[in-house]
């Protein structure tokens, strides 16, 4: 009987926890009807079960307090996030921010361009005017002035006059006579 009671007490523990298989419950009830010791053990465990339930119940206000506190913290965090997000949007959309961003871009481009290395510089061709003779320089200036005065027509007339002046001449003609003929004096 004692060995059987030991086994039954193990079953009683499962029974109180609600984990005893259904097929064993009937056998257990049958034994409990006959055994005062095991029946007393079941009553004691049921009493412990009730007391533990009351104990858990007494903790509920603490848990409710905790849940309320946490919910408030979460709401506050959500609100702070919204305010921060709205602030960021306002800052990004403001004209001052846009101007500042444009200034930064311009400065960055300026710095980039100014820091281009010497190897990137394109060598501009040096004009060769300083190497020409004074006569050629005078000719260029004359043609330039003619163009500004009367466009291509004036340049063509200037060229015709020059060619006419340079036509074959008597070898004894002087420069003054040549120029006088050209200038009409």
């Amino acid at each position, binding site marked *: 009987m004692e060995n059987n009671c030991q086994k039954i007490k*193990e079953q009683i*523990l*499962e029974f*109180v*926890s*609600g*984990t005893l298989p259904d097929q064993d419950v009937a056998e257990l009830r049958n034994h409990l009807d006959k055994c005062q010791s095991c029946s007393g*053990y079941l009553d*004691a*465990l049921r009493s*412990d*079960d009730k*007391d*533990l*339930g*009351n*104990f*858990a*119940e*007494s*903790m509920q206000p*603490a*848990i409710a*307090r*905790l*849940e309320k*506190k*946490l*919910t408030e*913290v*979460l*709401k506050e*965090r*959500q609100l702070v*996030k919204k305010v921060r997000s709205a602030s960021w949007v306002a800052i990004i959309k403001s004209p001052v921010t846009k101007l500042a961003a444009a200034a930064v871009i311009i400065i960055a481009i300026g710095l980039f361009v100014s820091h281009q290395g010497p190897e990137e510089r394109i060598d501009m061709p040096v004009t060769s005017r300083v190497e020409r003779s004074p006569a050629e320089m005078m000719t260029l200036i004359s043609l330039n002035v003619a163009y500004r005065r009367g466009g291509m027509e004036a340049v063509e007339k200037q060229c015709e006059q020059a060619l006419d002046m340079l036509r074959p001449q008597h070898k004894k003609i002087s420069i003054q006579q040549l120029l006088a003929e050209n200038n009409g004096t």
Partner: protein
Amino acid sequence: MNGRSEDDLVASCRKADELAYADLVKAYSRRVFAVCFGMLGNTHDAEDLTQQALLKGLTSMNQLRQGEQFGSWICQIAKNLCIDFIRRRKIRRRILLKRSTAETGHSKVHPELESAFTKLSEDYRIALLLYYFDGRSTQKIAESLGISQDAVHSRLSRARKQLRKLLESQGDA
């Protein structure tokens, strides 16, 4: 949880929807509190550590791989925080629990049961607390502790057996 699954709520939390976390708090605060109280034996400290654990869960959400494992994950966070807390305070568990029985005061349990309860091993205490705090569901206990339901049944049975033994020995004394 307003009909939403843990996966759904965890996914929302990852998208910075902190109010979705409020639903997880409501669903799991009892379990986390049971773990903390089981380890610390003090309502005041258990509340603090429960809050810390749940807030840590929110900020560490990206470390959780699967939403449906939230229960066991948050309970593990709570356990780790309690271990650190106990280590920091350098208080022996029995002294802390003895002090707590005087401090709680509002418990409806008779003092003998409280005294015996505090003498249970930590695993048994936590299993019993989870059972009574969170709807007497062995499945939920299994999820929270990361063990099988059979292991939960066994643990609960042994916890009751040990508690009964402690009560009987107190009665004899």
